């Protein structure tokens, strides 16, 4: 099959599909008049075209569900999808939902992140005791914390505790803050 043959088939195809122009039709008619092979080819392709229409119609067009039914099922399916419902919300409503969700996430992060980001310190042994007889601390200069005047109230602090006995035999309990500050925590006399 050379190019001329394909050109002939294109013209026949266009003729069968109703797409042929008047000038092309003239060329085709001339070919059909001169060439018996072209005429036979036209007949063959015409038969093939008719059978193809019937075959496709019987296979596709006349089978299966109606378009309306399929569309309706698809519509129901899509309506049942909750994500779709969010997407189909009114613009303002969608904005409000988005703002609420953003606020909730922001608040959650605000309260959760400080706890999560606090560095872990090594645990302080509860029985950490030290005696330092050189320290002379005047407990009277410092007001006692309220938690100590009211023992029922429990508070948690990150402190180290030290106890020692001074020259007069008084026992002292010292609260040592982590920042190297030392201040008296309590004085009970006979501790």
């Amino acid at each position, binding site marked *: *099959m050379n190019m001329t043959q*394909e050109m002939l*088939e*294109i013209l026949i*195809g*266009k003729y069968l*599909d109703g*797409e042929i122009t008047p000038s092309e039709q003239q060329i085709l008619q001339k070919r059909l008049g001169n060439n018996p092979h072209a005429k036979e080819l036209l007949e*063959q*392709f015409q*038969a*093939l*075209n008719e*059978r*193809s*229409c*019937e*075959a*496709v119609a*019987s*296979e*596709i*067009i006349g*089978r*299966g*569900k109606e*378009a*309306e039914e*399929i*569309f309706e*099922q*698809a*519509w129901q*399916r*899509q309506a049942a999808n909750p994500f*779709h419902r969010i*997407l*189909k919300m009114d613009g303002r409503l969608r904005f409000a939902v988005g703002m609420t969700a953003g606020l909730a996430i922001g608040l959650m992060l605000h309260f959760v992140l400080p706890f999560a980001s606090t560095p872990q310190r090594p645990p302080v042994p509860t029985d950490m005791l030290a005696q330092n007889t050189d320290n002379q601390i005047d407990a009277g200069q410092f007001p006692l914390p309220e938690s100590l005047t009211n023992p029922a109230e429990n508070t948690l602090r990150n402190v180290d505790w030290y106890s020692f006995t001074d020259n007069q035999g008084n026992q002292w309990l010292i609260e040592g803050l982590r920042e190297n500050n030392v201040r008296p925590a309590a004085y009970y006399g006979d501790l």
Partner: protein
Amino acid sequence: MTTERRQNQSTLVCAAQQHDKEALQRLLIRNWPWLKGLVYSIIGDTDEVDDVLQDICVRVIAKIDSLREPERFRPWLAVLARRQALRHRQNKARRPGLLKEEITELQLDEKAPRLFEKLEQKEQCRQILEAVKSLPEKYRQVFMLAYAGDLTYGNIAEILDIPITTVQIRLVRARRMIYDKITGNKSSKVLEK
């Protein structure tokens, strides 16, 4: 497609984008025959065409908002349909037992000088469909759009986003390949490029 029809279609698309169910339904039904043909040309199984079409409808309902140019609805729909059909075909291929698509080899008398001379009409149709299934996909798509959708070359070119001359040539070659397959003519020089 004429300008009037195109405008009408664009109007329907705009209405569908405003969640007008009836407009969307009309839009799809208007394009239903070629859509069905396109899906069939990809999956090649009539029994599964409806399932894929329903999936396509779901996608269209969900995605119609994203269509920026209403006048390009057909090519957009064709791309969406092709993707959905290919996905279906891939999923089907993964399922065991359904992997092989058996295409019956046609037992034809090579001496038969004329087409359809000894064949019954039903048998002829079956043979044509088998021959269509054996076509390379790009030829099969054009063939199915031409015959199922009853579309002009211009419509097919618009849907597949290819030049009209390409449509003409593919259709001619598709016919030639089907003809050769049915008549048992193996000397055809029409080959897939």
